[in-house]
């Protein structure tokens, strides 16, 4: 073993890295900071390294050309030994990375770790989050399938709404007038060179600052951060009741990192790679594009915002959110760290989490979209046709053929864009039904030009039968016995 030591000494005499590395590894951390809550940063770094390795492996086969990308992914999935596994690891790794970075951010926020003197660490962290999301979106583009193609269209449509510069931004983003070869090539350059290069640089800075400034101590309610005294107090804390990071504090990070890698691999094996879905052929229009899960909330938001609010919300919302995150350490750089005494912080996190969760959940079944095949795929349930007249049955046919079903459900089947019509006769009188069908309104198109008078009569005759047993349909108040005359 002596020769090994000699080789080591030969290198270190020239590199002179052993001492600084030992100092960094053995720097003292507060004993109570060695907690299972403090493992997410190192886990994000671990997944990032996994992404680099699997990304390089994928680049051995992948071809960033609009005419070849899709088939090179098929080759990875089916022809190259374990190509599917590397794709699945990279895809699941990306999902895990977004999730872990978000959890890390929430933890840092709730533990007040962004306060003095760690403001810049937080700000760089915000940029790391944005770059992670940028990697997620550009990665989805590289999976050059139908979802990627139409996802780019959505991105271009959003970018085009920027006042004045919109059209130029779209051309810059697409690399030309349409989504085509140049678009994929530039997203490849972003995903493989530009953003990863920035990420590596920013991650190094981020970790360096954690080493220099020390990891945040466990927040004690009532122990306030003051600029004048904090650094001295922190130093005393690490000296008095601290422990060296290696080997005393690192083992939880190691366990969790290994656990995350196993989880990524397990998901990869069990669920397999993501897509690619259909070919990126814009003449195939029978498609309902959807983004990956981390952008589903946005997809839902875009259908629920009032139309006039959309452009301002899309263009101003992200800017306000990012500026808010960047300003946070300056607005509350001192004071209480513990979440137990920061109810507004806790409520903010809960509110955002519930909002994003609800939107993501809604995007899972898109109640705002017409069911494109309901009119031909979901027949009118039998119970609605029992004991009906010929005219009413004709109305049920009109109801199907005119695609009313795409937006209105009967017996839980059909679209959810408009209200379910199982008991519509209780809500609307025959006259109101006719007016609604002919004129539309309340987000329903007008069908006046597409229904003959006979079809309208039949349709309304059918709709009038839609009321629960024992509950009579709505009638004109004026015609009711004892009612007011108009």
């Amino acid at each position, binding site marked *: 073993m002596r020769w090994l030591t000699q080789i080591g000494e030969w290198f270190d005499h020239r590199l002179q890295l052993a001492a600084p590395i030992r100092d960094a590894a053995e720097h003292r951390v507060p004993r109570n900071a060695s907690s299972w809550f403090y493992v997410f940063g190192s886990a994000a770094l671990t997944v990032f390294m996994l992404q680099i390795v699997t990304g390089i492996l994928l680049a051995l086969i992948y071809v960033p*050309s*609009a*005419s*070849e990308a899709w088939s090179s992914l098929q080759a990875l999935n089916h022809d190259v030994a374990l190509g599917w596994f590397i794709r699945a690891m990279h895809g699941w790794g990306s999902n895990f990375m977004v999730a872990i970075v978000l959890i890390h951010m929430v933890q840092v926020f709730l533990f007040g770790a962004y306060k003095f003197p760690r403001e810049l660490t937080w700000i760089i962290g915000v940029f790391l989050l944005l770059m992670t999301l940028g990697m997620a979106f550009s990665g989805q583009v590289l999976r050059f399938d139908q979802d990627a193609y*139409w996802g780019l*269209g*959505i991105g*271009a*449509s*959003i*970018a*085009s*709404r*920027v006042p004045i510069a*919109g*059209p*130029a931004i*779209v*051309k*810059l983003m*697409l*690399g*030309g*007038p*349409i*989504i*085509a*070869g*140049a678009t994929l090539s530039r997203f490849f350059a972003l995903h493989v060179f530009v953003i990863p290069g920035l990420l590596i640089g920013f991650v190094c800075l981020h970790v360096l600052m954690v080493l220099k400034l020390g990891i945040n101590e466990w927040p004690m309610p009532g122990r306030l951060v003051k600029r004048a005294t904090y650094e001295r107090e922190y130093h005393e804390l690490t000296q008095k009741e601290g422990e060296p990071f290696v080997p005393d504090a690192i083992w939880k990070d190691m366990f969790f990192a290994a656990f995350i890698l196993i989880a990524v691999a397990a998901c990869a094996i069990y669920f397999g790679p993501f897509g690619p879905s259909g*070919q*990126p*052929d*814009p*003449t195939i*229009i*029978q*498609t*309902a*594009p959807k983004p990956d899960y981390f952008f589903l909330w946005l997809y839902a938001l*875009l*259908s629920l*915002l009032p*139309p006039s609010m*959309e452009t301002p919300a899309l263009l101003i919302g992200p800017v306000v959110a990012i500026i808010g995150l960047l300003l946070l350490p300056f607005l509350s750089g001192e004071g209480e760290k513990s979440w137990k005494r920061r109810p507004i912080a806790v409520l903010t996190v809960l509110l955002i989490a519930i909002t994003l969760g609800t939107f993501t959940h809604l995007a899972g079944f898109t109640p*705002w*979209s*017409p069911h*494109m095949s309901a009119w031909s795929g979901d027949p009118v349930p039998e119970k609605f046709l029992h004991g009906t007249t010929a005219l009413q049955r004709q109305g049920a046919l009109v109801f199907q*053929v*005119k*695609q009313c079903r*795409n*937006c209105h459900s009967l017996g839980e089947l059909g679209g959810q*864009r408009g209200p379910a019509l199982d008991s519509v006769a209780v809500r609307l009188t025959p006259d109101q039904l006719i007016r609604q069908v002919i004129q*539309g309104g309340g*987000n329903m*198109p*007008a069908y006046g*030009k*597409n229904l003959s008078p006979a079809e309208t009569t039949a349709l309304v005759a059918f709709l009038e039968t839609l009321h629960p047993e024992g509950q009579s349909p709505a009638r004109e108040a004026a015609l009711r016995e004892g009612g007011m005359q108009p």
Partner: protein
Amino acid sequence: MSDENLISRRGLFTKIGVLFNGLVAVAIAVPIVRFLLSSITRGRNNAYLSWVSLGRTSEFPEGETRLATFRNPYVMPTDGRTVDTACWVRRIEGDQFQVFAINCAHLGCPVRWFAQSGLFMCPCHGGAYYRDGSRASGPPERGLFEYPNKVENGLITIQAGELPTPGASAALIGKNSPCAG
């Protein structure tokens, strides 16, 4: 040589060196920026747009709306199938046509035509349009994008070449089309 106002020979050369590098950087930056912006500058004066044929008018029966496809006029060798574009052709009567972009005016998803109810519906966020392309319901703030069209020698041709987007095409089509909605 103890005068503080005097500049040493080395100090002067360092300053000239910084200046020289700055000039070289600017000189190199000019072609780099022009290269980066080439996708915009080429598009000036609608250079991407040209007239493309969708086929004989006889392929489109009067009173009906049919899907047509065309190859984008601006093509690069690696574009694959992405330059094949779909559009909806409505023949009102005679040589009167309306040609709609496939892209929803909300966020660009492909709209589908339902002849029975006379509506275009979008699968993404539920936008709907009437047969003449005007907005019927949902999140879009305007009607479908329309390509300028003309009939020549029995062929229906449209002026196309750019992805229609809510910001860009409003101006683009409004300027050129006689029937912009």
